[in-house]
C-alpha cells in the first residue's frame, strides 16, 4: 500500500499541488525566481478573450468528437456486426487508423486538406464538383470541424470495437421475439439494439468526451490553433502559454480550468447515466 501511495503522491498529488502553486505565482520558467502574485493570473486569464474563445472551441470540439467518432463507431459496428465471413477483415481495417499516432494523422490530413494539391479538393474537382472545394484549414467556419474529422477518423475504431462487443452481448432471443411480433428492422434497432447498448453507449460517450477534452495533437500539427485562433483549444493555448511564451502562471490557471471542466463533465454525465438506468 505504502509504495503505491508514494508513487501516487509523486506522480499525481505533487504535480497537482505544483500546478496550484504556479497559478498563484508569476513564473517565466522553471529556472526563474517566481513571485507570489495572488489572483493576478486568474484575473488575467478571465480578461483574455482568447481563453473564452478557446473554451467555446473546446466545447464544440468535444461535441464534434462524440458525434463524429462515436456516431461513426456505432454506425460501422451496426453495419458489420451481422457479417460472418468478412467481419474480421472490416473490424481490422476500421481499427487500423487508431494505431496511427495523432501527429502522423495530422500530417496526413493536412495534406488531404491542401487547397491546391490535396486529395479532397482535387478529387472534388475531378468529379466535376469544383464548386464544393473549400479552404478546409483556412476558412474560419470550417477549420475546427475539419481538424476534428481527422482526429475522429483516428478515434472511431476503438469505439466501434466497444459497440461490437456490446452488440454481441445482446440476447438473440430478444430479436427472435421481436421478429415473431412482426417488428421491422428500424423497430428492432430502436427497441432492442439501442436499449441493449445503453451501458456501452454511456461508456463510449464518456470516453469520447474525455478524449475530446484532451484534443491537442491534431490541432497542434495541422493549424497550431490558427488561422487567427479559430481552432485554438484550451489545451493548445496552455501549450502556447507554457512553452512558447513561458507564462507558466497563466498556463497553470488554464490547467486547473481544464481539470474542473473534466470533473464537471464527468459528474454531469454520471448523474445522467444514473437517471437513465433508473
Amino acid at each position, binding site marked *: 500500500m505504502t509504495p503505491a501511495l508514494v508513487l501516487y503522491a509523486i506522480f499525481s498529488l505533487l504535480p497537482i499541488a505544483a500546478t496550484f502553486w504556479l497559478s498563484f505565482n508569476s513564473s517565466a520558467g522553471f529556472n526563474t525566481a517566481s513571485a507570489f502574485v495572488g489572483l493576478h493570473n486568474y484575473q488575467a486569464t478571465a480578461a483574455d478573450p482568447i481563453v473564452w474563445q478557446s473554451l467555446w472551441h473546446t466545447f464544440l470540439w468535444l461535441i464534434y468528437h462524440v458525434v463524429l467518432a462515436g456516431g461513426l463507431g456505432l454506425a460501422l459496428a451496426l453495419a458489420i456486426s451481422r457479417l460472418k465471413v468478412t467481419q474480421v477483415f472490416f473490424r481490422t481495417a476500421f481499427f487500423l487508423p487508431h494505431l496511427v499516432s495523432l501527429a502522423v494523422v495530422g500530417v496526413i490530413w493536412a495534406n488531404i486538406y491542401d487547397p*491546391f494539391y490535396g486529395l479532397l479538393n482535387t478529387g472534388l474537382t475531378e468529379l466535376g464538383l469544383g464548386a464544393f472545394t473549400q479552404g478546409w484549414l483556412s476558412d474560419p467556419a470550417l477549420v475546427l470541424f475539419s481538424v476534428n474529422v481527422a482526429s475522429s477518423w483516428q478515434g472511431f475504431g476503438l469505439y466501434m470495437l466497444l459497440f461490437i462487443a456490446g452488440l454481441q452481448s445482446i440476447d438473440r432471443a430478444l430479436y427472435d421475439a421481436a421478429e415473431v411480433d412482426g417488428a421491422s428492422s428500424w423497430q428492432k434497432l430502436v427497441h432492442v439494439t439501442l436499449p441493449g447498448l445503453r451501458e456501452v453507449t454511456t461508456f463510449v460517450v464518456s470516453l469520447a468526451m474525455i478524449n475530446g477534452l484532451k484534443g491537442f495533437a491534431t490541432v497542434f500539427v495541422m493549424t497550431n490553433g490558427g488561422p487567427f485562433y479559430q481552432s485554438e483549444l484550451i489545451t493548445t493555448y496552455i501549450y502556447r502559454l507554457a512553452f512558447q511564451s513561458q507564462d507558466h502562471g497563466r498556463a497553470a490557471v488554464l490547467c486547473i480550468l481544464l481539470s474542473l471542466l473534466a470533473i464537471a463533465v464527468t459528474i454531469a454525465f454520471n448523474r445522467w447515466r444514473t437517471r437513465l438506468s433508473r
Partner: protein
Amino acid sequence: MLKFLAGSVAALAILAGGAVANAQTLKMWGPEQIAEPLVAELWNGIKADFEKANPGVTVEFMPPTGTISNGAVQAAIQSDAGPDVILTNSGIGRITIVRNAKQVMPLTEQYEKRGWKDQIYPWLYTELKGQFGGEIYEVPDGLDALGIWYHKDVFAAAGWEVPDTWKGFETLLAAIEAKGLQPIAIGPRTTGSAGHLFGNLLQSASGKETIGQALRKEIAWDDPKVATGAVRLQKLIEAGFIKKEMAGLDLDGASRLWFNKRAAMFVAGPWFTANARKAGYDLANAGYAPMPSDLPGEAIPTGGVGWSWLVPVNSKQPDLAMKWIDFMLSDAVMKKRAQAPASTMIYPRELKGIEPSTPVLREIFAAAAGGVGYNPSVYLPATVLDTYFQMIQGLISGQVTGAAGMQQMQAKMAEAK
C-alpha cells in the same frame, strides 16, 4: 612473467580509464536539414575536423524538432537531457523568451575573452550589445535577407520583370493572375513564413526607419505610416492576388506551389536554396529581387540575425560548447561553409574573396550589400509575436482588416515591457 602480465593489464586499465575519463560528448541541437546529403556532408566534415582537433571529443547532432517559436527549444532545455549547444532561429524576440526564462547563458564575457566581438560585423556587435542592457546571449551564425524569389524562365517567357514601383508590382500581379498562375504563394501556418511576406510589405510601404521606430515603440503600429503595409496585404487578398485558402498552408505547402511553378513568386531568404535543392528545383532558374517600393532607397530585403548559437544554462559541456563556437567562428570553418554547395545564408562577418556557390545567392548577397530592413518576426518582443503571426493569418483568411489588425498589434505592443 605473471608479474609482467599483471602490470601490463593494470597499465592498460589505467590507460583505458584515462581515455574514458577524457571522452566527452558535445550534444549539438542542429543543424536543420541534416537529412539532405549536401548538408550532411558539410556538417559531418565540420564535426570530424572538430573531433580531430579535440581528441576524445565526440560531437552528437540532435536534429531539431522545432524552434523557439514553437517551444521546441525551450522544451529540450527544460528536459535537462537536452543539448549542450544550440543552433536555432534567433533574433531578439525569440532570444528574449529563453533569456527571460533563464534558459540560456549570458555570453558577453566570452565576446571579450575569446575575441568573438571582432569576428562579427561591428554593427552587428553594437546591435547585440544594445538589446539586453549590454548583456549578450547569442552568437550570430547567419543573417537573413528576405525578398522575392521568382522563376527566371517563367518571367522571361512572359516578358515580366520585378518592377521598381508598387503600382508596377500590382500590375505585374494582375498579369500573372490573368495567366492562370498564383501570383504569390505564402504558407502562414508556419509562423516564420507568415512574417517573411508581411515584413517585406511593411518595409516596402513604410521604409526601414519607420518600421524601426515602430519596433522601438516610438511610433504606434496603427499609425497610418506603419499600417500601410497591412492594408496593402488586405488589398492583395481582396484582389485575389493572394488566395485566402493559403491561410491553411504551411511553408512546405506554399513552397510546393512555387517549386511546381503554379505560383510565380515566393518571399524567402537565402536558406530557401536548401528547400529548393531538396525539392529538385533547378537553382540556376531562381531569380531574386527585393520587394518594390515607392520610397527612394527602400526596396531592400528585410532580415536581421537569422540563426544563432546559444548555450543552455544546463549544458553539461559549457567549456566544450564555447570551444565549438570558437571553432565555428574560425576562418577555416566559415570559409568552408560559405563555399560549400550547401551554403544557405549570409555569414556574420565579411569573407573577402569568397563567392557564393549558387547564382541566386550572389543576387541575394548583392541585394543585401547595402543593408537590410527589419523582419519584425525577429525583432518583436516575445509577448507580441503570437499576436503578430495570428494577425497575419487573420488578414490572409479575411477575418481582420489591415487597420484593425494593426490596432491589435498596437494594443499588444503597449502591454509589452
